[in-house]
């Protein structure tokens, strides 16, 4: 009887020992796996770091090779489609173009420029418009030249500000220019100038 009691005690101890050994074996297996994963990850990371260094080197070369062109286009795009209203730039652009058309035999006067508030456009994310009203007095030839210029807006060559004509009103009842036979017409052109700020 006493021998049996000793055996039960031993069995219990043994069972506990087996459980502990089993749990250890299980954990050990997991730890071996984890170590193996760690080794693989370390190797992968070494490879990836090498890959990253190569990619960065290629990127620097790409940027250096294309730096001039990237900068050129970036500047052009900023003039054509600025990130803010850039009203003062547009004033200069229109006045300079209008003045370049003007001559005594073919006059044109930019009389007024009025800006509305900017509005967000739903159709393109980040796009805004600023309505502008332009009032001129000029010959019919210059009227068509102004229209042609505004229509060709957003041009990469002349870097003109991107805009869209929304309204043209011209009064074909001409006025005599300084007692000559040149007739001047009043015309008002409404445009939306664009800006792009995708923040």
């Amino acid at each position, binding site marked *: 009887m006493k021998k049996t009691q000793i055996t039960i005690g031993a069995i219990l101890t043994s069972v506990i*020992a087996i459980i502990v050994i089993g749990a250890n074996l299980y954990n050990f297996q997991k*730890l071996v796996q*984890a170590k193996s994963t760690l080794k693989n990850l370390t190797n992968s*990371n070494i490879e990836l770091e090498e890959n990253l260094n190569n990619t960065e080197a290629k990127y620097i070369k*790409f940027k250096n090779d294309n730096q001039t062109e990237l900068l050129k286009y970036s500047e052009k795009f900023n003039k054509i489609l600025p990130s803010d209203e850039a009203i003062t730039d547009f004033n200069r652009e229109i006045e300079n173009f209008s003045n370049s058309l003007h001559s005594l035999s073919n006059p044109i006067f930019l009389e007024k420029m009025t800006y509305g508030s900017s509005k967000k456009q739903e159709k393109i994310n980040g796009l805004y418009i600023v309505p502008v009203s332009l009032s001129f007095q000029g010959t019919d030839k210059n009227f068509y030249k102004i229209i042609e210029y505004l229509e060709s807006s957003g041009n990469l060559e002349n870097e003109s500000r991107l805009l869209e004509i929304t309204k043209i009103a011209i009064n074909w009842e001409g006025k005599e220019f300084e007692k000559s036979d040149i007739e001047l017409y009043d015309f008002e052109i409404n445009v939306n100038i664009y800006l792009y700020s995708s923040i």
Partner: protein
Amino acid sequence: MDPNSSKNTEDIFANQNSTPEQNNVQNDGQEKVKEENKKSIKKHPFPSLILKLIILIGIFSFAYMQTQLSVNFSIFGVSVAKEIQTLEKELLDNQAQINKINLSVAVDSLNFFALKAEDYLSHLEQINSNFVTKNTKEKLSAKLPEIKNELKVSITTAKEAVTAEKSSGNISEEQAKKSTEEKLTEEKLALASELNASENKDDVRKKIQNLNEILNLLNNDDLIAKIKSFDIESLSEESIKSLLENIYSQQNNKLTTIYNIDKEKLIWSNVMHEIEIVTKGIDPLYGSALSQNIGQIKYNSFQLEKGENEQEDKIIVNGTITTSDSKNFNIASDLIDSFTNSTLFSGAKMRSFNKKFDEENQYIGNFNIELTFQN
């Protein structure tokens, strides 16, 4: 459990129900049994101790391994699990950085491609135009191979960049994409938060815009698939146009915005030209030097208005019709019909007609016609 303790308890119960002699005999027997038990116990101290030791070591070992397999314990230094976690994050970060760089190169190359493609198509258009001189055409033709070569370089770079591996052995493509997206978004938010305080706002905006373009391309599987399958060797006008169309419709940047707005612009000079053609059809002297004196139709104003949508675009033309035979309403009607039948306009409207006889023996009437565009 101590085996001696149970034995002692049973001995006490046995002693309570026996005589002194029996007790003596029993005691002798018990002593022997005790001795035997002691001997039997003494026979096995070593295995029992080993077991206890095994259990003890086992518990410690288990605890140690458990800490190594857990990211939260750091009693024995940095655990293996923590190291794995750190490395996995590092791997994802590195992969995200590689993907960001490749996508950045792809975005720039696609923009170059679009610009070169526009140039190439514009050259082709002029070469095929009847209004360009032979000399100019020859000059333009001579430039084509160079532009075509630049196109090939741009699209090859873009193709290489989008084809570069987006994940490494231990990271799935989905994980890498998510990590890249998170990295780009974090960078974008950081830039946006420093925008107001920045001295060079334009520079910060450019960086944000660039990150937006990269993010856009990252999530644009369709465009990436088109770039990957693009046949660079057999570069043709059609394939260039097709890819360009895809870039414009699926990328969102300044270049594509300029193109998309330009595409939808209403060309008012075409409208005015059409008004002139229609008017000359009714009054051949319109626009000539003689029209001031003997012309029938004279415009006072054009009002061209762009609506919220194409159906709302409208033109209002008004002026006077002068005749000597009082056929003003006939001419006004002819003008309305001509506008309606023109290829550009539809729905010419005028519902009030008037005329009067003036002092110069002429009939003068005003007209006010509202036109809409054909769909």
